[in-house]
């Protein structure tokens, strides 16, 4: 039987979100971020958000707009521009609070939430300033003796990163939320949708279920099941300006333009007026215009 029709628009998805929520954002750095939904959130009056991500411009934009008040991350970076300028400014001004985890701890937090466990143990983080700066992180003593020493090892207990909502971007999806990632890394999107009470998938293209593997897509790229998806939105070029290979690479020129908006309030206001106060089709038209000019 086909799954239920869960197609929606970005504004319908944002209408389901509430101020104060903890929202997980898929992707990694400046790679395959659900930017069309981030832009819709930027146009909304949502506030007091906790953003949970391997962060990139998603985090930076929501810090700059003032809508994020807490960020939980494994890092925040634009990849080709190592330091995210707006996240950086927010941290230095103290306009947000932060939980900065080791990258692997972050994965375990998502996995714990996805498996409905309170925590997962790891050695990662022990001895570092992660638990010292974030004293809500606790250790747990193994109930088993370590074979060599006979000691019961102390490990860091990474708490579940439970999410009210997750937003992820996938290359293809069907109308009920079965989704396909292309490229070479699924990132943690499949864990993120399971870590969340409600999960919203944006996609380059909604296709019939029987066409999800068109073009020689391998079964192993069908990573997200409709069982874990609340709604699905078709957003062509929706990860722009982050990369979404093989559909498209990062728009480095646009990313540089974005990064430069940290230089002054005027630069940000201009960028916001030119690109963010438009709806998604207006934004995409602007972007198309820019790439025409560049050509």
């Amino acid at each position, binding site marked *: 039987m086909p799954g239920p029709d869960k197609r929606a628009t970005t504004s319908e998805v944002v209408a389901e979100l509430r101020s104060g929520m903890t929202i997980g954002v898929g992707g990694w750095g400046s790679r395959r971020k659900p930017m069309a939904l981030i832009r819709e959130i930027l146009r909304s009056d949502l506030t007091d958000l906790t953003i949970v991500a391997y962060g990139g411009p998603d985090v930076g934009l929501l810090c700059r707009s003032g809508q994020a008040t807490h960020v939980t991350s494994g890092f925040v970076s634009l990849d080709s521009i190592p330091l995210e300028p707006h996240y950086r400014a927010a941290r230095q001004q103290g306009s947000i609070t932060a939980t900065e985890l*080791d*990258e692997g701890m972050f*994965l375990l937090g998502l996995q714990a939430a996805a498996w409905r466990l309170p925590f997962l143990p790891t050695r990662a983080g022990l001895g*570092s*300033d992660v638990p010292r700066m974030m004293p809500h992180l606790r250790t747990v003593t193994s109930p088993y003796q370590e074979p060599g020493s006979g000691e019961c090892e102390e490990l860091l207990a990474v708490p579940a990163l439970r999410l009210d909502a997750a937003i992820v971007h996938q290359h293809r999806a069907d109308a009920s939320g079965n989704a396909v990632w292309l490229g*070479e890394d699924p990132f943690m999107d499949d864990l993120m949708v399971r870590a969340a009470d409600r999960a919203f998938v944006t996609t380059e293209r909604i296709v019939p279920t029987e066409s999800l593997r068109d073009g020689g897509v391998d079964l192993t790229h069908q990573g997200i099941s409709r069982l874990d998806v609340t709604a699905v939105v078709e957003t062509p070029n929706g990860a722009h300006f982050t990369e979404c290979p093989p559909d498209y690479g990062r728009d480095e020129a646009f990313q540089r333009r974005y990064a430069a908006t940290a230089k002054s309030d005027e630069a940000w206001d201009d960028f916001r007026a030119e690109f963010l106060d438009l709806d998604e089709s207006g934004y995409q038209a602007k972007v198309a215009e820019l790439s025409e000019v560049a050509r």
Partner: protein
Amino acid sequence: MSGARRADVCAVAIAEAFRGDGERLCNPIGNLPLIGGRLAAATFEPHLALTDGFYSLVDNVPPVGLDESERQAQRVVGSWNPYRSMFGLLWHGRRHVMMGATQVDRHGNQNIAAIGDWHQPRSQLLGFRGAPGNTINHTTSYWVPNHSPKVVVESVDVVCGIGYDRAAELGPVSARFHEVRRVVTNLCVFDFSASDDSGVPVLTLRSVHPGVTIDEVLEASGCEVVVPGEVPESRGPDQVEAAELERLDPGGLRFAEVPDQ
């Protein structure tokens, strides 16, 4: 070879950090570390595995600085290694990473997260990234292209990669996989072969690069450094290594990172 260029000496010193690693993932981060790591794999440590910089482990030794299509065309993929697999690999331990360090201290603690108080830093940097997990799980070395008292410090502002003092506090069971092997800088090579009064390993001068004096190293270091009775000069590349360096870095990225003195 007395006329060796400084960047080549650094590349060889980086390569030497991976000597003896055998069959494990050699995972240097940054241009000169990549060049040095690949030099080791191309010469005296032929069983090292390398990454393609993204999502796979490769079994050949391609040059650095390739554009995306060339990078994909030239790699011989041994296995798929998306990020979640990389965490699995590093928790398993068969890896030696060489990371950068905004600060590194006497006991080998490393900071890439922030300058100042972490809670509201004077300068926000990368965050902890993978440094805590790396250092507690497998061998780690550091590359410092700009050796100065601001980088080599008495104690780092934020401990990301853990040093020998933090490892000692954890005890021998929790810290049994911890090893900070080398700190290679643009001036010298440190290891941790000497210990402080409590028996905790500390920065020890292993060699100085040609043209650098021990006093220069001490002046450029913001913490105490153990100087053994005899400090050899870091070696330059032999003929085979020199040819490999040209092949691995035909564009001379290494000279942009460490200019001639």
